[in-house]
C-alpha cells in the first residue's frame, strides 16, 4: 500500500451512507449482521419497508429485553417487532418476493466484490461447515444489489478485486459498493468511482483497490457525519 493512511469510515458511517440512497417507501432486505445497521440511519421523513427471509414484511426494532416473542424473529434469529402495515407469509412467498424482483434494494456484506459485479460473501475456503442461507437468492432478484464493506481486509488486502478468489455467491449481481473509503458503481464490467474521502488522493485509493477505478461523470466527496458506533 502506498501513500498516506487515511482513516476510513466506521461501519456506522458506511451504513449511514448506504441509507441515504434508499427512497421513502422502498422495500429493502438487509443482510444479517453489519448490513442490518443501515436501518438505523434512514433520513428523516423516509420510511423503508424491511423484508426478512423468514416471512415478515415491515418489521421494526427489537423489543425491549425480556419482551421478546421468539416466534417473531428475523433472518438473523433476532427478536423483532411488527410495524402497522406488517404482513406475515411463508418461505416460498418470501422468496417469491426476493427472486421475483419485488425488492427495491438488497444490501449485503462481502468478502470480495469483483469489477464484473461478482460477489463472494458466503465462504472463504473449503474448510469448516459451509452455510449459505438466503445470500444466493438475494443477489438475484432485488432491483438493486448493493454491498457495504471495508475497503480492504483487516490485513490490508483489497476487497474490491478484478476476479473473486473466494467461492462466488452470485455472478454479475452487484451494482454499487459502499466502502470505508469510497462509493463505487459497477457498470459494464468496470468499477466506476463516484465518491471518495476528501482527504485521500485518487492514487492512494487506487492502491487500496484490486482493480482499476474508472471515472465516468462527476467524482464527489464522500462526507458522512460523526456517528456513535
Amino acid at each position: 500500500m502506498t501513500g498516506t493512511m487515511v482513516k476510513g469510515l466506521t461501519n456506522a458511517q458506511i451504513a449511514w451512507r448506504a441509507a441515504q440512497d434508499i427512497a421513502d417507501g422502498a422495500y429493502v432486505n438487509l443482510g444479517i449482521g453489519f448490513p442490518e445497521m443501515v436501518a438505523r440511519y434512514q433520513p428523516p421523513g423516509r420510511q423503508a419497508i424491511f423484508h426478512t427471509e423468514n416471512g415478515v414484511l415491515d418489521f421494526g426494532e427489537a423489543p425491549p429485553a425480556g419482551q421478546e416473542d421468539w416466534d417473531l424473529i428475523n433472518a438473523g434469529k433476532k427478536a423483532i417487532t411488527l410495524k402497522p402495515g406488517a404482513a406475515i407469509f411463508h418461505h416460498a412467498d418470501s422468496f417469491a418476493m426476493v427472486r421475483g424482483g419485488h425488492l427495491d434494494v438488497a444490501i449485503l456484506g462481502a468478502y470480495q466484490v469483483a469489477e464484473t459485479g461478482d460477489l463472494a460473501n458466503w465462504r472463504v475456503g473449503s474448510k469448516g461447515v459451509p452455510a449459505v442461507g438466503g445470500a444466493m437468492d438475494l443477489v438475484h432478484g432485488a432491483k438493486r444489489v448493493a454491498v457495504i464493506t471495508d475497503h480492504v481486509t483487516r490485513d490490508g488486502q483489497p476487497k474490491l478485486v478484478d476476479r473473486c478468489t473466494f467461492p462466488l455467491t452470485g455472478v454479475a449481481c452487484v451494482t454499487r459498493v459502499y466502502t470505508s473509503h469510497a462509493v463505487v458503481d459497477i457498470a459494464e464490467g468496470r468499477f466506476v468511482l463516484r465518491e471518495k474521502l476528501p482527504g485521500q488522493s485518487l492514487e492512494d485509493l487506487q492502491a487500496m483497490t484490486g482493480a482499476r477505478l474508472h471515472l465516468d461523470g462527476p467524482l464527489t466527496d464522500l462526507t458522512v457525519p460523526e456517528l456513535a458506533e
Partner: protein
Amino acid sequence: MDKTIATPAAAVEGIADGASVMIGGFGGSGAPIELIHALIDRFRATGSPGGLTVINNNAGNGRIGIAAMIDAGMVAKMICSFPRSSDPRAFTERYLAGGIALELVPQGTLAERIRAAGAGIPAFYTPTSFGTELAEGKPVAEFDGRMYVQERWLKADVALVKAETADRHGNLTYRLAARNFNPLMCMAAARTVVQASRVVAAGGIDPELVVTPGIFVDAVVEVREPQQEEALIRAGVGYA
C-alpha cells in the same frame, strides 16, 4: 406510504396501447368491474388503450366487464383457459370472425405460469397437457420415468385486481372464492392496480391474515359497493 388513488379512472391512466393486462376473477367472482369499466371509458373517450392482451381464466360473459372490452374493440388477444360462459357472444363472434387471437392454456398451468412470473421462475415442468395438442412445440423432458412439458412464466404490464379490504400499504384480503387468480396476478404484473371494497389505515389488517402482502401492490382505489359480475349478468345489465 400511501398507495391509494382517488378514482378508478385515475388508477387505470397509465395503461398503454398494446399492454398485457391481467384481470382477476373466475367467471363472475372476483372481477374488478369498476376498473375494467374505467378502462373502457378511457378507450371510448380517447381511443386508448387498444390492442390489449387480456389474461383471465375466461373471456368475458354477457355485455359487461371483459366482454364489454371485447365489444368495444380494445382487445387484440385473450390468454385464458375457458373462453366460454353462459353468454360468450362477445368473444365467440369476434373470434370466429378472426378479429381476436386466443392462447388457450390449461387452468392450472395458467395459474402456475402467473405464479412463476411473480416468483422469478422463468420456466417449470408440468405433467399437464403432455401428449396433447396444447403441448405442441413445447420442450418436454423425463423426470423419474414420467414425461413433463416445459412451461414459461407469464408476466403482464398491468394487473387489475379486486380485493375485499386493503390497507394503505397495499396489503389485501379477498372475499370468499373471489380470491381465485387475484393474489397471483398481483405478483406477476409490472404494475398492480387494486380496487377494494374497503381501504383501512396501515395496521388495519392483522399481519397474520394478510393474503397479498403490499409489496405486490402499486395502487389501491376504494370502490365501496362494487358491482358483482354474475349479479349484473343475471340482471341483464350491459355496459354500452
